[in-house]
């Protein structure tokens, strides 16, 4: 098991390796990886098709808890894919918060790799896979990714039993009776909770849906509610990545806000304004005016 802690720029320098790692990890040597990434979300989103599981924390406690869970999920024989635990760079990585540590003894079972190197049974491990086999490895990754949903649920359940803290694929705040949902990831979604409290005082029934696991992407039922989605990323020539995910997975027609890029200041007051000024189907770049 390897654990790497990195930041945005160094992660981007390693951009070739994340694509190779799951492929080899799933079927051959003992390369397991948990990356705890403090970054611009743009950097991790750009890695979304590498075959790594991706999860985004909103508090230091959650980053800690999720890292423990990530080991167990990554090492599960049904998964055997690397997990990237993401923290908003600076906003979360450099904010000092209270944290409850946990005696994690026994929570992560002993590692058993079905294809670990065994000198009693020597084998060749090819660094290169030809077209004859490559697609099978790629399909195997997708099979693992599909199985990961169940493993994540079971792991979160086991973690909750031990710690009393539970998260899930998504977390919701005042969403039950909401007419409009703010959907975001990481610290932005935490700040959005404060915006929702204020909007409710004004008479707007708003809620927050935080996407925690981004790969595998959660199944979402938005039940016809209006959506304001905040992307701290952008796919140039296309749109906000989360906005597009909601369009395709949940058939939503969101008001797509692009905000917080590179640490741009976004307050709970700003988020409340996004909801007040929402225009379903449109895209809004926060802070950009005609003269920018």
């Amino acid at each position: 098991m390897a654990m790497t802690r990195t930041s945005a720029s160094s992660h981007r320098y390693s951009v070739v390796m994340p694509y190779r790692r799951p492929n080899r990890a799933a079927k051959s040597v003992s390369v397991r990886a948990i990356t705890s990434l403090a970054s611009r979300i743009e950097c991790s989103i750009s890695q979304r098709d590498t075959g790594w599981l991706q999860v985004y924390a909103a508090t230091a406690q959650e980053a800690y808890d999720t890292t423990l869970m990530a080991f167990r999920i990554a090492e599960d024989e049904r998964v055997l894919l690397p997990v990237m635990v993401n923290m908003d760079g600076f906003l979360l990585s450099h904010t000092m918060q209270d944290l409850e540590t946990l005696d994690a003894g026994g929570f992560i079972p002993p590692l058993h790799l079905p294809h670990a190197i065994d000198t009693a049974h020597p084998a060749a491990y090819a660094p290169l896979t030809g077209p004859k086999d490559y697609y099978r490895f790629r399909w195997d990754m997708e099979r693992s990714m599909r199985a990961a949903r169940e493993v994540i649920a079971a792991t979160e359940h086991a973690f909750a039993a031990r710690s009393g803290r539970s998260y899930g694929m998504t977390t919701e705040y005042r969403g039950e009776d909401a007419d409009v949902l703010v959907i975001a990831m990481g610290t932005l979604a935490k700040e959005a909770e404060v915006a929702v409290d204020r909007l409710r005082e004004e008479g707007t029934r708003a809620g927050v849906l935080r996407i925690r696991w981004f790969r595998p992407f959660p199944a979402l039922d938005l039940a016809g509610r209006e959506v304001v989605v905040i992307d701290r990323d952008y796919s140039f020539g296309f749109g906000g990545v989360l906005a597009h995910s909601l369009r395709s997975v949940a058939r939503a027609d969101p008001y797509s806000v692009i905000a917080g890029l590179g640490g741009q200041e976004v307050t709970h007051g700003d988020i409340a304004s996004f909801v007040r000024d929402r225009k379903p189907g449109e895209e809004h770049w926060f802070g950009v005016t005609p003269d920018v």
Partner: protein
Amino acid sequence: MYEIRIHSRGGQGGVTAARLIATAAFRDGKHATATPFYGAERRGAPIIAFARIDEEPIRIYSQVQNPDLVVVLDRTLVRVVKVLAGLKPHGAVIVNSSHAVTLEHQRVHHVDLTGIALAEDLVIAGEPVLDTPVLGAIARLGVISLGSATRAISEMFPDPRNVSAAERAYRELVL
């Protein structure tokens, strides 16, 4: 929620002071966060850092807009930075100064942190240490307890002169 903004110059310990405040508040049994505002770190450049204290878990990550308390570790900053920006109507201000300070026609609290650091021989790389003594002044306003402040300081900086300086700032803050 009680919100604090600290103005200092790079190298004076504003970021460390915010971390000490959050640690002390945590020792008081409260939730707390400390956040530096990062640009390019430069010694001597104006720096801001924030601390928040609440009975409930803190969900806000954006910068403090309306502080209850403003702390100025370097008196010369008041000429180049709007240190009172957004201060709450009954908000407090502590300025590191050996003599009385008036900002925007308002008398503010002062304490000679530099003098205290020099008297305690708290000098690192030729600069007086301000981040530990200021905790005492903040404790005097009741934001954190003096006991938790000195505990937070000694956990991070075992040299006992840091705690003596904080206790002295507690006594010497001019209200």
